[in-house]
C-alpha cells in the first residue's frame, strides 16, 4: 500500500523520541525485519537530532518537519529545518567531524545515516536551513511465511 505523511514539531530535544516513535509506526505495515527497523529508526534519530541541535541550536520556538512516503516497499523521507544551514556539507559528512565537541557530539551522524540508508542527500544553505533526504527499501519478513 502506498502512503504519505507529514509531521511537524517544535525543536525540543524531547521531541526526538516522538519523531522516532512516529516514523517507526508509519513503516510498520511494511513488515521490516528488526534490524531494518532499528537502522531506519537510527537514521531518523540522527537527522532529527541534527536539525534540533545544529539547525536550531535547540530553539524550541522553531519547527522541524518530516515528510515521508511509502511506495511499495520503499520509504522516501525528508527532514527539514529552516535554521542555520551547514557551512560545508562535504566536511560535515566526514566521519568524526563535529562543530559541537563540547556537547559530545561524535561527528558520526552522517556516516551512520549514509551506511543505513540506500541513498542520502543533503541540501543546505547558510541562514536558510537544511534538508536531509534519504531512501530505504525494506524486505518484508512476511513474504517468506506467505510462500510456505
Amino acid at each position: 500500500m502506498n502512503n504519505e505523511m507529514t509531521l511537524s514539531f517544535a525543536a525540543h530535544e524531547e521531541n526526538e523520541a516522538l519523531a522516532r516513535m512516529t516514523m517507526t509506526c508509519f513503516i510498520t505495515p511494511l513488515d521490516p525485519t528488526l534490524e531494518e527497523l532499528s537502522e531506519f529508526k537510527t537514521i531518523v534519530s540522527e537527522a532529527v537530532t541534527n536539525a534540533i541541535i545544529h539547525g536550531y541550536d535547540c530553539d524550541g520556538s522553531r519547527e522541524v518537519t518530516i515528510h515521508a512516503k511509502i511506495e511499495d516497499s520503499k520509504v522516501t523521507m525528508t527532514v527539514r529545518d529552516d535554521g542555520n544551514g551547514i557551512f560545508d556539507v562535504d566536511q560535515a559528512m566526514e566521519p568524526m567531524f563535529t562543530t559541537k565537541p563540547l556537547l559530545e557530539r561524535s561527528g558520526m551522524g552522517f556516516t551512520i545515516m549514509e551506511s543505513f540508508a540506500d541513498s542520502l542527500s543533503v541540501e543546505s544553505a547558510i541562514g536558510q536551513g537544511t534538508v536531509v533526504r534519504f531512501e530505504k527499501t525494506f524486505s518484508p519478513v512476511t513474504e517468506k511465511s506467505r510462500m510456505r
Partner: protein
Amino acid sequence: MTQLSITPEGIIVVTLQGELGNHEANRIRTQISSEIFGGTAHAIIWDLTHLSFMDSSGIGLVLGRMRDLAPQQGETLILNPSPTMEKIFQFSGLGSVVRRGTIENAIGEIGGVYHEQ
C-alpha cells in the same frame, strides 16, 4: 532508566535500558562523570543487554567517559549491544571493546570480582 554501580575494585557498571538518544545521553552524562571524578573508578562497563535503541549520541557518551578515565588509563568494555548498535560502534572505531557475555565475565576481564547485589 539507568542503573549505576561500582565494584570494590573501582569498576563502574552502567546498565542502560530503553532508548539512548541525544536527550537521554544529556541526562545521564553528568551522573556518570561525577561517579568517575568523585570516586576511585578506573574502568567502565556499559551493559547494553536491555537497551532497545541507540544512535550516535551513545558514541559521544562512551567516548566522553573514555576521556574522563584517560588519566587513570581506565579500560572500557561494551557489553551485548544489538546488531545495529554494534555496527555503529564499529563505524566509530570502538568494535574492539565490544563483548558478548555476562557482566561477571566482563568484570573478570578487567580484573575485578563480581559481587551479587
